[in-house]
């Protein structure tokens, strides 16, 4: 039988090769993929998150763990889909129109992937229309907006307006972040949530995913 502790450690240390091999082995041994995910992989990623929160891990360490997690998930997801288990959700992420900052956005994207979300990265300087398209055509149920400039913050409001205009505002959740963003601003523009850090963004996305209308 596969050593679950080893798999857990492989995620923790960001050893993608081992993580994948151990997962493969476990699945061959007919371990229930849902069980493997819930009992080993997610707890490992949660520990990574905890180590990051408590300032033990730095981003590079978190990223290689997220990559190891992703390589394991690639094997598990198709099996889950067969069984009708839902993925965590699909997030379209981008830095808003006029804003060129991508590091924060990339970090959130990587964390979301590591957290089991499917991530559509729209890049930087993204128009409201592109976010609408991602929600409509790529099935994103969460839109994550980043802005680092106070002058580009208003573009976030435009994305919300564009979603409304397209008639899909109720079926997607909007989360926002970036240095100048505050909860107050999120409330003001009618966003569904705000986070000022990457691992907070994953927790936020989880809670938003739980609230997405079933139809989505």
């Amino acid at each position, binding site marked *: 039988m596969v050593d679950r502790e080893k798999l857990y450690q492989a995620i923790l240390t960001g050893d993608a090769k081992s993580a994948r091999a151990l997962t493969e082995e476990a699945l061959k041994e007919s371990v229930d993929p849902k069980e493997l995910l819930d009992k080993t992989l997610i707890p490992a990623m949660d520990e990574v998150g905890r180590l990051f929160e408590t*300032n033990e891990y730095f*981003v590079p360490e978190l990223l290689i763990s997220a990559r190891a997690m992703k390589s394991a998930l690639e094997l598990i997801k198709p099996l889950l889909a067969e069984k009708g288990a839902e993925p965590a959700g699909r997030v379209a992420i981008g830095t808003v129109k*006029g*804003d060129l900052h991508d590091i924060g956005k990339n970090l959130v994207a990587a964390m979301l992937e590591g957290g089991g979300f499917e991530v559509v990265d729209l*890049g*930087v*300087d993204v128009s409201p229309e592109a976010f609408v398209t991602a929600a409509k055509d790529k099935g994103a149920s969460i839109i994550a907006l980043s802005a680092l400039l*106070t*002058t580009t913050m208003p*573009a976030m409001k435009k994305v919300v307006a564009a979603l409304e205009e397209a008639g899909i505002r109720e079926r997607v959740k909007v989360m926002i972040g970036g240095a100048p963003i505050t909860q107050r601003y999120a409330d003001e523009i009618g966003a569904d949530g705000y986070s000022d850090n990457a691992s907070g963004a994953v927790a936020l996305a989880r809670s938003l995913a739980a609230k997405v209308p079933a139809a989505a």
Partner: protein
Amino acid sequence: MPVSQPTIPRLEEFLFGHARCPVTCGNHLEIGAGTVIPEVNFTLQAIEICPENWADIREQYSLMIEDLCRRAVELEVPGILFEFETLPPMTVNPAWGLEITEILSETIDRFHQSHGLRAALRLTPNDTRDHRRPPRMRSGPFWEGMVEFLHKAPHAGADLLAIESTGGKEVSDEGLMNADLKKVVFALGVLAPRDMEYLWGEILSACEGTDTVPSGDTACGFANTAMVLADRNMLPKVFAAVIRVASVPRDLVAYRVGARGPSKDCAYEGPYLKALAGVPISMEGRTAACAHLSHVGNIAQAVCDCWSNESVQKVRLLSADAPTVSLEQLAYDCRLMNVAGQSREDARKLRDWLVESDSALDPQAYVLRPDVVLRIASEIAREPTPYLQTRRAARAALREINRAFEEGRLRIPDRERRWLERLAKEAEELPDREEDLIAECLPETSRETFLPEEYGLS
């Protein structure tokens, strides 16, 4: 491309206010000739840059510069530098940026005439090539907008022209997130210098035959990104400290081809530029806390020639708008330096207190110690090419940090210690030949984010 015989100053002569090659600009403003002056940066509160808001935007800038000039006169500053860093749409659409430049320049001139204010305007357009991935570095609408802007800037009233160029940032960003020293050195030591030679050719030709001084470039997109991430506990501080020093050779390219300083405020690596290129430097620290919290609040001031607030929005505080508040704080900081600066011995004392304030607490502060700067600078000066200089800078920084840590002159938190070794190993593994580094790195890049041919590589 060897740095041609740089005259690295002696520690006793490495002081705030004094640069080997002072710069005169604007309204009889001398920089680096013995007096430290404030550099004030200011920007808008959140507002969309669009035609409907344009009248309001013009007014905001007008109010800011008017207020700033008035208070500068009241505070009797010996001189002042104003920086206008455009917002991206103002570079994409040069007419906008140039219109604001004219408003600022006219107001400054008016105060010079009416009150004898000695001031100059530094104009810093955005490097908008960074807008797209993969970025086009030498063609396309972003490049063309920048070129148009640069060439018209002197005629709109820019006394100094600067930029925060982004060549190599698309590669460095990935390298930073992964603390991948090789990749960052590839960006800073190979890509950025190639881009800067090209871009700075354009800036120098824009300034030629005008009174506009080509001032400087900054590794803001590299070293400050690392600094901010380190301050948020996302990256090790030792890594950010190494990147700081490794960004020096890149910055030097601008001065080698003809930039004259003062360096950009957000180039915290400024002391190295002052040591190696002899240019006056603008620095920011505690008084720029409005823009960055940092761990170099005092030491950053130690050998500055301009002292800056980095950037602040037009937010109303209890006393006045935030830019005016920044000006007041900077002006008093400069007064203190200039009083102490009346004697070289006193200047050294103040410098050393500023240094001792911070240098033991953080490796990013430690590498800004004037003595460390001079030691590493002489090592950098001995290398012939930007790549080898960058490699040397990284290795020397790591060696200095390690030694200081071992000798108890620098504290490194437990969780960072494993990084010291890891980084030293990565630095040792950097190849001797630039071609080898290129050959190693290119296959690890993706054409989705980076096009080698934009740097003359392929």
